């Protein structure tokens, strides 16, 4: 088999690369070391690469060996007048490479689409179909999609959409909740059963957490509530509380919840300089609640030179999940991003589309090739 013995012969230009002769197993192993984006790029090198990189056995190996590409996706800004092409694009930020990625969504046969949530590599969007808003599940990488059953009520699209890793969907609105599970394939309607509108509801594995104001019209008093997804609508929300927590909810102005890493949740808001009613905020504080031990701890504090940009803003949006939390406000024109991996790791993210006037909202999107809608 070996013919290249002895004196070194100059390789002919037409000589096919020896790489192409490697057995499938070796090629699979090599490519499984590559990040997702490089895998996609390699697909266009030659037919053999394309064949290898789209084979089911390689995709299986990849899903076992490599974590998904974790991105922070932006929700399109609200436009009251529908512009030419509202959003045939998902804009997502890769924090590792500090790079914005654009996923075209025009493979979806709808007039307009609006991404709102994601779980396990799938993207959930509101889509216009037959004068109705419908939730659509898709994988923008493989361009496959599926429609969820119609929701039947027009106002539901103003609700918060939460998706569990197993594909259950909860749409929480001011007063009601709609629940969809893939096994039943239809929506169930519930009263939300809370004293007031649930604020920044999040899903941690199979439990919904939300903040709820139980205070008076003059003074808000935030409390944390939870409800198991499987019990939703059947049993009431449970107030999560511990004597040791003291006045943890009074420290923050306009608190928001974000799903933390592992079994934890993060709560971010303005750090009140004093407990008085109209106290100003000295910066933005992030607290972490360990759900196993039910203990709060400080997770991050926005540097002052960064906070001064947010100081005047009345409307602060907080989003993210896992290791990342983003802050957006009007006229800031960029995102402030916190990473839990390094203590005090804050940075600016530029290049947000738009004129800086709009406020960004978003969610974590784990891009992966094997997610099936």
């Amino acid at each position, binding site marked *: 088999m070996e013919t290249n013995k002895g004196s070194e012969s100059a390789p002919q230009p037409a000589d096919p690369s020896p*790489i192409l002769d490697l057995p499938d197993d070796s090629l699979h192993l090599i490519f499984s070391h590559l990040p997702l*984006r490089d895998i996609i790029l*390699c697909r266009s090198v030659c037919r053999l*690469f*394309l064949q290898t990189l789209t084979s089911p056995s390689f995709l299986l190996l990849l899903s076992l060996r490599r974590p998904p590409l974790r991105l922070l996706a932006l929700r399109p800004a609200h436009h009251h007048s529908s512009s030419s092409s509202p959003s045939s694009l998902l804009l997502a930020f890769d924090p590792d490479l500090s790079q914005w990625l654009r996923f*075209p969504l025009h493979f979806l046969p709808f007039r307009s689409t609006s991404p709102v949530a994601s779980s396990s590599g799938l993207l959930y969007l509101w889509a216009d179909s037959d004068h109705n808003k419908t939730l659509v599940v898709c994988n923008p990488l493989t361009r496959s999609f599926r429609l969820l059953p119609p929701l039947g009520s027009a106002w539901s699209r103003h609700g918060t959409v939460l998706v569990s890793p197993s594909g259950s969907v909860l749409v929480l609105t001011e007063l009601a909740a709609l629940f969809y599970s893939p096994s039943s394939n239809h929506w169930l309607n519930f009263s939300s059963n809370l004293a007031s509108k649930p604020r920044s509801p999040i899903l941690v594995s199979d439990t919904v957490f939300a903040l709820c104001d139980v205070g008076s019209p003059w003074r808000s008093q935030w409390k944390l509530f939870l409800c198991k997804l499987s019990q939703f609508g059947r049993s009431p929300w449970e107030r999560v509380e511990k004597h040791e927590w003291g006045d943890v909810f009074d420290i923050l102005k306009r608190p928001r919840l974000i799903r933390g890493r592992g079994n934890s949740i993060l709560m971010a808001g303005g750090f009140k300089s004093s407990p008085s009613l109209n106290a100003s905020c000295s910066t933005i504080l992030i607290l972490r609640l360990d759900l196993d031990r039910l203990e709060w701890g400080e997770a991050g504090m926005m540097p002052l030179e960064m906070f001064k940009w947010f100081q005047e803003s009345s409307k602060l949006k907080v989003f993210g999940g896992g290791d990342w939390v983003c802050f957006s406000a009007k006229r800031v024109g960029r995102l402030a991003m916190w990473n839990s991996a390094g203590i005090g790791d804050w940075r600016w993210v530029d290049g947000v589309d738009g004129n800086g006037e709009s406020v960004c909202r978003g969610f974590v999107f784990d891009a992966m090739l094997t997610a099936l809608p």
Partner: protein
Amino acid sequence: MASTSNSTSSKIITLRSSDGEVFEVEESVALESNLIRRMMEDDCANNIIPLPNVTAPIFYLVIEHCKKHAEMKDNKEKKKELRSQGEELLKSDPHTYSNLMEAVNYLDIKSLMDLTAQWLADFLKGKSPRLIRELLKIKNDFTPEEEAEILERNRWAFD
């Protein structure tokens, strides 16, 4: 030669490459190969183990890297060194690289399979399809239409 000069009283295994060269290797090194392990478990432990798919120069490289890999385990510097050597080999002599990868695959040496795969992966990382073709001398065998379609389907990665 590839025989070991270690003074420890470990057993020596004798192996013969496809081109007839005989290697004496410490058992601990030889057992990195699952193929040799299986062969020894079967019977031929006392005889010379034939390796009909591996030539002497490649087998020499394999043993070399087995040893380096063992040293590298708790040495970051060595790790770096080994990685850059891999890249060198890949650039200067892709034939030897793919022969080494095939041999490692045939001998079923898990640690080196990962290592050699990592070399090529590092080499490919961050490069455009055009540059990859050029450096690895791979012919673009797509029709322009096919290429345009792949680009269209995966536009996000090409921006």
